[in-house]
């Protein structure tokens, strides 16, 4: 399941609800991505994440579907935020439930590696030195390559 929202993400509440629904799973792995206060040596005071309604959601759903096809999962949840955020705020939450830890860990990492390179977002970082648009980093592409 995927969710794209402007409202703040509450990772603890999401994980609690996900765990309650994942009855019978032997393993749950989760990841929370936070807005960084520093980006490439520059201070960030605000991050704006633009999306394309009707275009971004299907792309997130495709990543979730690929993860579910690739790993033996009981459930997968991707919650992504859009709009304006401050450093320290959660920007993405991914959780996977599986019979065994390997599939749970791998599915979360796979989903994140795909999200960081392919999710249709446009990211603008604002700081004391001005604002700049960000593109996916070389390290993100290398992480993505691992999965073929």
């Amino acid at each position, binding site marked *: 399941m995927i969710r794209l929202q402007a409202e703040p993400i509450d990772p603890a509440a999401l994980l609690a609800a996900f765990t309650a629904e994942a009855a019978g799973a032997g393993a749950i792995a989760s990841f929370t991505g936070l807005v960084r206060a520093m980006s490439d040596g520059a201070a960030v005071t605000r991050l704006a994440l633009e999306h*394309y309604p009707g275009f971004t959601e299907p792309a997130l759903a495709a990543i979730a579907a690929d993860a579910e096809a690739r790993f033996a999962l009981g459930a997968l949840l991707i919650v992504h935020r859009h709009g304006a955020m401050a450093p320290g705020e959660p920007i993405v939450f991914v959780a996977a439930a599986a019979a065994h830890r390997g599939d749970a860990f791998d599915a979360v990492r796979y989903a994140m590696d795909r999200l960081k*390179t392919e*999710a249709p*977002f446009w990211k*603008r970082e604002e700081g004391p030195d001005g604002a700049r*648009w960000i*593109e*996916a980093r070389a390290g993100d592409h290398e992480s993505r390559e691992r999965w073929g």
Partner: protein
Amino acid sequence: MKLLLFGRLGERAALPPVPAGIGDTDRLRAWLAEVDPGLLDGSVRIAVNRELVHANVPLAAEDEIALLPPMSGG
């Protein structure tokens, strides 16, 4: 025709309305290059009705065109 600009493209000066008679994406590209040279710098992709296009496709008046600069990922 509705023309949407995302990311850094949204900060450029507003474009005039797309004239009638722009019947395909090749003609749209040519028109954009005239009204805003540098807008399509080679990295910008075009989506028609929320689908990326990879070749010349026909356009209709009710179509939604999006100009997409490189995405940042989530």
